């Protein structure tokens, strides 16, 4: 089922609003096991962090996040108003251990089964999906 969506206006909204939203979603879905929830939440926060990062660097960002909990999978969709994103999805290798950034997309790739990006009508559309383990 599709749960309520979260409108993110950053600033002043930040990642803690996304955490609070995820807590509300999973409070309504206690059937999701701890490991799946932990891995999915981490991936959603990394994705939302990438989107909100544009707000940190100067311009404001308006985004909508929808998390869907189905019996067989979890999905998270974020659409945002930022400029088109280039050459991010190709990042799969974990950076050197001394690196202080660059782990977000590799984390997402390691934690969920699918990551898609599409640019449509001057908006970015991101979707991640994770199969629920049996």
């Amino acid at each position, binding site marked *: 089922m599709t749960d309520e969506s979260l409108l993110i206006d950053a600033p002043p909204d930040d*990642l803690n609003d996304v*955490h609070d939203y995820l807590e509300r979603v999973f409070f309504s879905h206690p059937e999701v096991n701890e490991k799946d929830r932990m891995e999915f939440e981490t991936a959603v926060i990394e994705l939302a962090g990438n989107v*909100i990062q544009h707000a940190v660097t100067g311009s404001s960002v308006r985004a909508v996040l929808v998390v869907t909990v189905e019996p067989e999978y979890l999905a998270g969709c974020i659409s945002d108003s930022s400029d088109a994103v280039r050459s991010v999805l190709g990042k799969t290798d974990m950076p050197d251990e001394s690196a*202080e950034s660059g*782990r977000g997309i590799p984390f997402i790739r390691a934690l969920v089964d699918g990551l898609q990006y599409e640019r449509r009508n001057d908006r970015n559309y991101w979707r991640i999906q994770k199969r629920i383990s049996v």
Partner: protein
Amino acid sequence: MEFHVREIGADVASVEGQGRLNSVSAPALRASVDRAIDGERPRIVVDLSRVEFMDSSGLGALIASLKAARSAGGDLRIAAPSKQVSMVLQLSNLDRVLKPYESVEEAYVD
């Protein structure tokens, strides 16, 4: 999320916080570690027992803090990470560089 620096030895300090270590709180961690180093305590243990969540920005702040501590002749160790924090450390292959100790007290028994 606030961090507190606690002096626990001649040159050791623990940095303790409660909540989520993400891009919002990462600068506060860095500032607290810098405060400990400035206070002549470059051997630092970050108490993660009450940190429920860490993302890649939080991990980046730990790496930056580790480098700062080592530059000052000390080290940075972590204590009591949650399951989620341990998962992030393993994913990034940093669980050897930031080897978790069971408690703040055990981090610097040497």
